[in-house]
């Protein structure tokens, strides 16, 4: 009953804004929590699928976290993982169906990875760590924030991989237009292979931790 006494919190209070911004940097799901790495390697060869993947994951984490938070008092702890998985699977199938109906080209490009959002550990991580214990609105913001934090890394990685691996950006042949091939430049084939994504994520982690030294773990 003590909740009733508290004054109503504004929708975008400092605390709520932090829910959105902290996952972008200090609690980034990829670079700090090292979750969702597999899809980060797989869909980042080109910018366009990375952006659509980022939007899809953000939708699933946001709405999923909201649904879980609304249900949190009714979910029996013994079956909570099953309930969480069902919510994720439902949302992912809906995203897949919508993409097939309204963004057919992109759905073809993303192909297998839309279905694999189900196995993205960030989503279940947020449901377990946040949605199960917090009110709907903060949970929704937390989901969106984490989706964006994931998406941001995807977009940075795919930017470099597409630019140096294929010489294009969003399919536009940028290196060809500025005549880089005429002076003997060649695309780096290594860039389009998955290991390069891991190296790029590693570089991002390195840059981030040299800027914020307190993030470096003791070992």
């Amino acid at each position, binding site marked *: 009953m003590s909740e009733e006494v508290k004054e109503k919190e504004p929708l975008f209070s400092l605390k709520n804004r932090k829910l959105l911004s902290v996952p972008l940097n200090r609690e980034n799901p990829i670079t700090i929590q090292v979750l969702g790495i597999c899809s980060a390697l797989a869909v980042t*060869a080109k910018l366009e*699928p990375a952006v659509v993947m980022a939007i899809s994951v953000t939708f699933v984490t946001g709405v999923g976290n909201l649904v879980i938070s609304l249900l949190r008092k009714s*979910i029996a702890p013994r079956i909570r993982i099953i309930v969480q998985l069902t919510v994720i699977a439902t949302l992912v199938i809906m995203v897949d169906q919508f993409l097939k*109906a309204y963004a057919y080209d992109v759905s*073809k490009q993303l*192909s*297998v*990875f839309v279905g694999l959002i189900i196995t993205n550990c960030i989503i279940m991580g947020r449901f377990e760590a946040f949605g199960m214990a917090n009110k709907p609105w903060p949970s929704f913001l937390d989901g969106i924030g984490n989706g964006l934090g994931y998406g941001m890394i995807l977009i940075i990685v795919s930017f470099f991989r597409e630019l140096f691996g294929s010489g294009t950006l969003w399919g536009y042949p940028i290196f060809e237009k500025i005549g880089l091939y005429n002076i003997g430049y060649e695309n780096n084939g290594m860039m*389009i292979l998955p290991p390069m994504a891991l190296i790029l994520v590693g570089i991002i982690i390195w840059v981030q931790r040299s800027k914020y030294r307190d993030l470096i773990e003791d070992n």
Partner: protein
Amino acid sequence: MFSNRYIFIYSSVMVIIVAVVLSLTAILLQPRQEKNLTIAKIQGILAALNVTATPEDAEELYAQYVSTELAVDQDGQVVSIYQDGTLEKGDIRPFMIDLKKALYSKKMKEPFVVPLYIAENKGDTFYIVPMRGTGLWGPVYGNIAFTSNFNEIAGAFFTHDKETPGLGAEISTSEFSSQFIGKKIFNDAGDFVSVKVVKGGIAMMAPDQRIHGVDAISGGTITSNAVSAMLKNCLENYLVYIHNNIKQ
């Protein structure tokens, strides 16, 4: 705190709600999805002719370019003809033939019919062969256009459902498909040799064989092999027809 009874009821209700929501989504979106598939099929056929179609003008362009659709059976006999919007022979429009089922019947050594499209572009006649094969994660598809005597490939188009973006999925780029233009599926003696997708590039082949090969995709070996296998498996169905009707 939560009884077993509660858990069972909760799970059942949840599953029913999810089933209803998903069924509704699927039913409501199905007409649009099927239309997308038909348009993608038409765009694929036109792309083999090097005609770029948008979803809006695809059906119109198809009617303009593709004059005749044939259905050819395993013995090279034409069993259906669909010409200028009417079915002149047979009982199924060749465009509606399910290639997956046809190729499965072939594998089971049962009778089958496969479609063949005849198109006119700038006064020349082209034959377009639709293809389907098995990629790494799911099916790969393609259409390949031949000049009127089946001597040379005039254009090719490939697509897929689930190949890895940036790797196997690159078969759908024009960089890959344009390599097929000018290649030959028959050798000088007139035997069928298909076109191979060669790992390491056609530079690995003997110089006189290079007319029957294209470069594979780095990092997409299984998809590249699937394209090779698809070409052979689908083109060989038309050999009797070609022998009887075109190269006598």
